């Protein structure tokens, strides 16, 4: 049985890098930050470094405080609403910014990105296809 999915965005990524890596834009008002992020289906949420929020003019600790656990420890992040631009697609969504400046990862996880996205992945060829569900 064959299945067909339709996508309106496509990107080639460097399969030689660790993780599926994309340049994304975080936008709030007139401020925006371009940032290298990894798609992480094992991450419950989208999480970004503190400096990205600061460049957007966000007062980080004013957001909802959430604890995140990893395989090796835990950290605190705060929820904020922004526009996330992935392959030209704009998603008005909530993401988390890490409190600690030592947190150096940027991940596109389930809540806020994967939950509203149709994602096609051909890692063998470093190709990623995307379509958006809703706004």
């Amino acid at each position, binding site marked *: 049985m064959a299945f067909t999915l339709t996508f309106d965005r496509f990107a080639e990524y460097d399969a030689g890098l660790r993780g599926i890596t994309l340049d994304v834009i975080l936008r709030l008002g007139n401020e925006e930050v371009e940032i290298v992020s990894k798609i992480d289906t094992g991450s419950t949420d989208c999480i970004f470094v503190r400096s990205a929020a600061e460049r957007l003019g966000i007062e980080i600790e004013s957001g909802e405080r*959430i604890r995140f656990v*990893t395989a090796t420890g835990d950290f605190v992040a705060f929820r904020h*609403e922004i526009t996330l631009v992935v392959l030209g697609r704009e998603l008005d969504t909530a993401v988390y910014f890490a409190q600690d400046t030592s947190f150096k*990862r940027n991940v596109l996880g389930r809540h806020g990105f994967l939950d509203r996205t149709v994602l096609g992945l051909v890692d063998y060829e470093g190709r990623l296809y995307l379509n958006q569900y809703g*706004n």
Partner: protein
Amino acid sequence: MSVETLNSIKSRANSLSPTEKKALAAYLLETAGDESDGKRRSILDAAVRRKRQDWIKANRSRYGGLYVALDGDRLLATGRSYAEAYDAADDSDVFVDFVPPEDYIGETGGWE
């Protein structure tokens, strides 16, 4: 733009490959804009964001674990998934997001 110019662009677009045509179509859609742009922009207006943030803070115990569709601090719909809440809201420009339960602990990978 004149009709001649538009027809010329269409004619030239016919020589593109199917992949190139799709890329062009995506570009045109992205840059065209429409009447909903103003409403979309207002979704992230600072005052509206503040209303939503306060609503979510006040309603984590009741709606935690669900997706909610909000118009400012007005609840339009809920769902167990983004799709459920979005479809139930019946408004293409509504803000839909997951409400973290009060005892929510997020998870993420361990790579650097």
